[in-house]
């Protein structure tokens, strides 16, 4: 099976920023400051 995934740079920007934000937010909630 062959799958082509078309993407745009803005999509990478959005997803990476979103995932990064979720990770950072999770870390902030987990680690008590």
């Amino acid at each position, binding site marked *: *099976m*062959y*799958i*082509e*995934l*078309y*993407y*745009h*740079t*803005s*999509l990478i*920007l*959005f997803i990476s*920023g*979103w*995932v990064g*934000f979720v990770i950072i*937010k999770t870390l902030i909630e987990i680690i008590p400051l």
Partner: protein
Amino acid sequence: MIWIYISLPILLWLCLLLPYNLKRSGCVSVLQSVYYAVIPTKKRVQCSLFYLSLLFCLLLLGINQDVVLADETPTPTFYPLYVTQTPSNSDNYNCPDGQPSGFGTVTPNPQWLLHCGQCLTPEPSDYWPTDEPSGTVTPEPTEVPEGFPDDDLPTLRSVASEAYYKDDNPSIIYEIFLEDTEFRSDHDGYYYMQPEAATETVQNIAGYYYAYHEGRGSAYEGFVQSIRVNLGGMVAFGDCTFTWSDDLGNSWEHTLGYGQTQYETIMDWSMVSTFEGEFNYVLEIHYEDTGNRLFSEGCKVDFDYTSRATGDNSENWNTIIWNRGYYQVPQDVGMCAEINGEGEGEELPDDDIFSLPEILVGNMSCFSIGGFNIPLGWLETLFGVSAENIAIPSIEICFVPLIFGSLNLFGLGINMDLIASAMAGILLIRIITRS
């Protein structure tokens, strides 16, 4: 490869687990999430975004399944996603020698003025004074180089055979390649015409040559000598008409259609050895676009000049002096040669006023998740039931970058890539600030 195994669970998590958790927390339907995205509230934004991510993932995973993997080397640049017949900028905006035809009788339309307004020169009259301030010295027009080679002649640029194709350097329009600038008995030239206009004629692309001899005496006078001009290797990408004429009364014309070639077209004429002097020749190439863009466009002709001494191989009668100077007389066949008046020229060949963005796709980067077999031979061994092995085929996944291009509105280019990136950034900031 390792990043694939890291990112795949994240992708699954985004596409499946998060919407599931959100459904538990109140996000019920996809339509509801779309509605929330259109009219967001502080509490609903997170719900809608997660559902939109689900839609996005489904869209991402559902493209082009079961397509045979092309065994091709990826092209190094972006290429159009959908090949369409786009109008080419095939007109030239050269100003004619003098006023464009129709001057004074036709009111130019705005589009013609946009391209060719500089070609209109005011004429002094009783009503409209000339724009030239008094005392202005009009520069003399540049003279066409004549005579024998000297250092003031324009430098010729070499044209490699790659210039034969259009995409190498679109700026190459007229060039001539000469192997040698020294005096020699024969000379090879290469000329390739790549016109900008759909119809264009170039003449006088080379200067003239000169034949002489340093006779050894009267014994050699009277021999019939000859000069051979071999216009070999004519190739036409379009309708090309090659016309040759010179001062000695020789003329020749040949027309080739698209893709046709002709070799060894020899012009051979004789002269007596007492001839000493020079004569001019004109080679005209008339090109007409046939709209075929399969390979290239334009006309190409190879030169091969050779002097011959018939009946005698006298080494002292063998020199043709090739003039390095060349000049071109552009023909006023562009749209500026004639004024397009009001109500005319709606179908301009150059449509740079409005153009839709052209989506380009780049090199794909692929990875494969290897297939594997589930052996079932043990079923027969244990239970006596024969079953074929289960083969899980491998999955080839290719990521293909996209470029949206720019939208051209009335000459104003709007970069769609920049807008998409800005919207992504704004949406990201909105998520961060509202959560």
